[in-house]
């Protein structure tokens, strides 16, 4: 056997082995199920496809949890995992889902809005496949997802994405980004169907408040903030001021641009009666100039490069050796959601949404995020839902 054949055979074997091992890990990640424990407040669970049948049987279909109060009132929708690489949104939504008691009105939660994206990875970006949250009963494991839906579920991409209905040209990748495909359409691309289903939910359930939770880079000006269109501005401003005064953290208000289409904070308001809000908390993991993309960086937000850039005044949030831990981000989201509901309810008694038993910023920072998650091994089987 010539040397060249041996060399080529060895290369084929190595590449084959790498492909099988790596491919298997990616397959397992895509099919990993996160157990969600429906808390005492959960009264019914629907599928998003019930609002847009085109989603049925696809990876884009996802669970919608309803927490209905004993007293009728308004309705608030909380959307998490629009971008599944911004996990503080999912973690916050699960705190509500597993703990909240709704006294008046209805709280609707979609923890994995872009379910397909949560089962995908970001090629070229070296993310970890999973992250773990410490709880009193052990570690809870979550999938780390991607900003856009998996090409396995929606493919091919167009050469340029033409936004519906404005015809604004957006990056080809944005056709799989559920924060660019609002308000969606029933017969469009899969992610347009996802946002259309959510719009239908908002319209049919008469949702008053729609909150889309995100995370943003520390070098991005639109971070640590509430993004709101004109119609939501008063509540957003009151929320921001109250959080600063009562809980001591910054969460400034950013106006939703009218010329930038497809975003939840713009289109939900324009295509329904609901008041939209988009919450952003800093996530250093997503910044470009960081060290290795590890689980630690994702959870504690500590990075030496960002620290140096902060000292040069190049970040848009305060940043020191303590980084920007997950508990801080989740705590901010919990407080902001509760405060938006409170501010709205004060002025709209008939349509009030009153929620209790959800921790605020200070408690989450003190106790940690995992403190609020229930142990699946001790939960009743009928209360466990897999997403």
């Amino acid at each position, binding site marked *: 056997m010539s040397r060249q054949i041996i060399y080529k055979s060895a290369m084929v074997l190595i590449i084959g082995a790498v492909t099988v091992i790596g491919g298997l890990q990616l397959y397992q990640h895509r099919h990993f199920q996160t157990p969600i424990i429906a808390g005492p407040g959960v009264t019914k669970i629907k599928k998003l496809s019930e609002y847009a049948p085109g989603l049925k049987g696809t990876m884009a279909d996802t669970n919608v949890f309803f927490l209905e109060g004993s007293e009728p009132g308004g309705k608030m929708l909380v959307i998490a995992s629009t971008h599944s690489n911004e996990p503080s949104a999912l973690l916050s939504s699960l705190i509500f889902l597993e703990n909240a008691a709704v006294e008046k009105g209805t709280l609707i939660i979609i923890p994995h809005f872009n379910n397909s994206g949560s089962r995908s990875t970001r090629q*070229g970006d070296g993310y970890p496949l999973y992250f773990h949250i410490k709880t009193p009963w052990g570690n809870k494991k979550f999938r780390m997802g991607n900003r856009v839906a998996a090409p396995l579920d929606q493919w091919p991409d167009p050469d340029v994405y*033409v936004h519906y209905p404005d015809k604004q040209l957006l990056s080809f990748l944005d056709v799989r980004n559920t924060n660019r495909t609002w308000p969606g359409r029933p017969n469009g691309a899969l992610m347009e169907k996802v946002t259309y289903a959510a719009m239908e939910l908002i319209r049919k359930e008469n949702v008053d408040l729609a909150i889309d939770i995100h995370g943003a880079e520390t070098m991005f000006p639109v971070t640590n903030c509430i993004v709101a269109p004109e119609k939501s501005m008063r509540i957003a401003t009151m929320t921001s001021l109250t959080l600063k005064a009562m809980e001591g953290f910054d969460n400034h208000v950013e106006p939703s641009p009218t010329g930038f289409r497809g975003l939840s904070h713009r289109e939900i308001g324009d295509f329904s009666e609901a008041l939209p809000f988009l919450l952003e908390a800093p996530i250093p993991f997503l910044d470009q100039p960081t060290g*290795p993309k590890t689980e630690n960086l994702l959870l504690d937000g500590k990075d030496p490069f960002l620290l140096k850039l902060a000292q040069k005044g190049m970040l848009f949030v305060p940043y020191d050796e303590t980084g920007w831990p997950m508990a801080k981000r989740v705590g901010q989201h919990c407080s902001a959601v509760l405060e938006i509901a409170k501010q709205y309810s004060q002025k709209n008694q008939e349509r009030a949404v009153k929620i209790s038993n959800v921790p605020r910023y200070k408690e989450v920072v003190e106790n940690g995020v995992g403190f609020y998650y229930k142990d699946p091994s001790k939960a009743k089987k009928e209360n466990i839902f897999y997403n």
Partner: protein
Amino acid sequence: MQTQIFITFLVIIAAYTIAKWRKLSVEISMFLAAVAGGLFGAITNTPRLSQLARHLVEGSFTYLDVMLIFVTATIFMAIISESGGVNYVVKNVIKYFYNKRLIVLLLLMLITLVPGALTGAGSVSLLVVGAPVAMALGYLGIKRKKAAAILFIVAGLSAAAPPVNIWAMILSAGTAIPYVGFELPLGIPVLILGTFTVLVLGWKKEEKSDLESALKQMPDIPKGMKWWRVFIPFLVFFGLVAALRVWPFSLPIIGLPLQFVIAAVFALLLSPKKINILRLSRDTVKKLTPLLATMIAVGMLQQIMTATGVRGLISYTVISIPLVLLFISLAVIIPVSEGVFTYGGAAIIGIPLVWYLDSIGLHATMAIAGLSLIWPLGDGLPPTALIGRLSVMVSEYKKSYWSFLKSTWLPWVVITIVGILMVVFSSQLDFLVKWSM
């Protein structure tokens, strides 16, 4: 941590250098550099050894779509060429415009600009019209090296031209700036710089030729070849691209690869001579394999560089440069980032850079437009050199790659200066954005 990352960077460079020294191909060298970087990073669990295979597999898929476009577009053009269509077009261009050099050069420039402007990919321009344009340039007395240089620069400009500019789209998406108002900031410089390029590189007739001998030298056109046999497949392709823009909500998204396949089927059916499609496809893929393998290896390397923190180190270093020096160094940083990461460079360096420029009062849209004029130049630089290699391939220039690249120096320098000036004076030039809206 920073020392560890820096050493990992050195390990990657050393592995690549040793592999090249051992005369291994670019793609194998890059693969080995990625493996070496990953193994060294694994010492500190960045990434974990158990995840190394997954990172390599995941990274290898980064450019899958681009690779599919390359394959299908090249097969489409190979059918046109095999059917005699390329020769037919070139012969007619030469016949009717041979003595009107300015018009013919501008016409060839526009033909090259259109596919890339519509799709955002200079590679599409080269794959679709590169071969006939190169041949026409040759018959106009322009040497192959210069023809390749013209194609490289104009194809790069076509990718930067509106309406679709992928760098600007990536930057707009990453910095939450609407992708609007780019028509004039990109369109005007592209047309001026394109005209400058074809005139500087193509005005002088370097090889003796006259119309009669040029026509004689050209290969025979197969019997039965008519203009509509060449025109219809292109009409089908551009028709599909245009239709998806005009009726985006009535037509399904089929993607560029399938659009090329459909056009290729038309080309095959309309060919005046029988074509063995299996042989042609096999030969085309064989020819493209090194390029495709490079794309796979670049994706792997990019993934490992991110997982180990090397990518972050590069990004940090760039945005830490003092402002004046930063403006000057854009001339190197931007093309090199494209050469290493292709579109990834826009995300790694471009996004933090635009945020930084925006925060010091520069106009973000104009700055993005300026930067995205410089990025395509990097497509001529190794290790990827995508557009450069395609330009050389379609113009059949067989000599040293570097000699081809050197011949692009004048338009390269002018484009770089224009791009940097657009960034520096972005606030003063913001009227171009307003006029576009």
